[in-house]
């Protein structure tokens, strides 16, 4: 009996455009946009045969917020709060990429102290981002407790950042030529305390979760992404390092003062979800190492350059600024015509490239594993 259910379910625009395989007796299933494991609003059209995925096609744009158009409409300082809302988990990195692209185009020299403050706050933010990923990923895999531990530490770091930046999540702290206000002794003291508190916690996380064999069954040898696939799709960040390529923009294309710190770039060549998991767990410890070194060598001086432009008007030309975010390489391609707002601003969101390899990786895997793969990519959908 040839019962083609697909003829009845023409669905919406994307479901109609979906190109299924030629197999018979398959089912087309929409996962999302309202789905707990899609982290935000992502929709995936799946063609499944039983529990196995034959074809998957992500549909995005449910959270498209016109950032690129807004950049052209608004002036440089007006656009300052926007980048942090692009990737709300690692907002400071985006904030940084924006100001640094403008600084690079104008040739501004940022005071050393400001660079150190940027490094410290950005790394603290990276830890909060990874902690949230850790909790939410395990929540996807069915473990509820770890997210409580993750939020415990996360809230403490957010308190530290909030005192100095003024917000909990969507930061707007960096300014063209520096940062908006200086850090004080209390900040340094609290940060040190938090760093020393976190170190034993990682061991506890490892004992509690990482060595748990139920978790290992869910992540080991799941979602193997060979390094060459990463290259073809332009995947970066922990996804790439989990595939054995120790590529980190902080080391490969050193910006700010990162070349002064001693830190490792963790990479695992298992290529599976476990590799990506371990990379992130190690990265948090590396971040703490960077923060402690930066606090030790924090220079005195200005936190913003004395004649920092409030309303910058960069010269005509274009620059590219790349930066390592929690999810991968953030790129700002800024084209200026010498006016008070950019002529064109292109944002490279790491999650965008990382997600694009999902449809290749998920072919032939179980639906439950697809959830694990999605989580291990750590997505913030642009």
């Amino acid at each position: 009996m040839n019962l083609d259910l697909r003829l009845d379910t023409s669905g919406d625009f994307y479901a109609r455009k979906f190109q299924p395989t030629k197999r018979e007796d398959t089912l087309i299933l929409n996962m999302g946009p309202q789905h707990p494991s899609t982290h935000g609003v992502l929709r995936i059209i799946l063609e499944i045969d039983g529990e196995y995925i034959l074809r998957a096609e992500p549909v995005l744009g449910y959270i498209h917020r016109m950032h690129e158009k807004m950049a052209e409409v608004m002036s440089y300082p007006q656009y300052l709060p926007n980048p942090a809302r692009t990737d709300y988990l690692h907002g400071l990195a985006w904030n940084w990429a924006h100001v640094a692209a403008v600084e690079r185009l104008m040739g501004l020299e940022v005071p050393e102290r400001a660079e150190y403050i940027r490094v410290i706050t950005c790394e603290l933010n990276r830890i909060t981002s990874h902690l949230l990923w850790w909790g939410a990923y395990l929540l996807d895999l069915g473990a509820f407790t770890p997210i409580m531990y993750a939020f415990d530490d996360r809230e403490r770091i957010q308190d530290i950042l909030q005192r100095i930046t003024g917000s909990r999540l969507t930061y707007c702290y960096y300014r063209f030529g520096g940062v908006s206000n200086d850090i004080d002794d209390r900040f340094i003291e609290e940060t040190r305390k938090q760093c020393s508190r976190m170190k034993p916690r990682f061991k506890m996380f490892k004992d509690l979760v990482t060595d748990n064999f139920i978790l290992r069954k869910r992540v080991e040898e799941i979602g193997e992404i060979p390094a060459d696939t990463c290259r073809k799709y332009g995947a970066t960040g922990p996804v790439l390092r989990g595939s054995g390529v120790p590529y980190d923009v902080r080391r490969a294309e050193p910006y700010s003062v990162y070349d002064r710190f001693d830190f490792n770039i963790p990479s695992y060549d298992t290529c599976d979800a476990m590799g990506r998991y371990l990379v992130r767990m190690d990265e948090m410890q590396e971040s703490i190492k960077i923060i402690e070194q930066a606090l030790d060598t924090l220079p005195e001086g200005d936190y913003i350059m004395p004649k920092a432009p409030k309303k910058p008007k960069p010269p005509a030309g274009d620059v590219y600024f790349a930066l390592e975010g929690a999810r991968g390489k953030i790129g700002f391609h800024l084209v200026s015509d010498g006016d008070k707002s950019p002529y064109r601003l292109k944002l490279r969101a790491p999650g965008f490239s990382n997600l694009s390899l999902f449809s290749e990786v998920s072919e032939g895997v179980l639906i439950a594993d697809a959830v694990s793969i999605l989580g291990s990519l750590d997505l913030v959908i642009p």
Partner: protein
Amino acid sequence: MSEENAKPEKAPDKEKEVKKKEEPQVPKYTGYDYDCFLAPQELLKAVTKLDHADFFLEDVSCVDMQEGFQVVYHFDRFSQPGRVVLRVMISRENPEIPSIYDIFPGAAWHERECFDFFGVRFTGHPNLIPLLLDPEHQGPPPLLKEETALKDLNQLYPDRVHTPVSPDSEEFVKEINNCSNQKSRNQS
């Protein structure tokens, strides 16, 4: 350099303004290690060469200007980091460019994004449908500029050569093989 940007002080106000116009600021390091213009029909050849030289695709972007659309491809390399940018000019009337999907499958979404925002058609793309925009979006692509706001190449990229390079030329091959951000930083 920074002083020129800062708010001019009261007295030497005009002098600085004049000075600013005479010497346009040039960024020390633009983030590009090799920057070239290509003819649209030679894009695929150049991208294949980059693929063989172990580059990965960062993004595909597009700039709307008087001469037409400038499609910008950014590439970088894991083993020896250095950014290569390929710029291709296509006309506004007939915005068509070959898709590089077959060489870099990751370009598929970037190209769909350009199609959304600018209406650039990538020939040979398997699935050129709106990615970020609502499929029921009315009106012209949102990132197109108004005629009056368009700038031309010389306004946007002063002091730069805009003649296309051939990907077969020795210069191109040499440049992409030696491209490294360490080197270009030391030069600047």
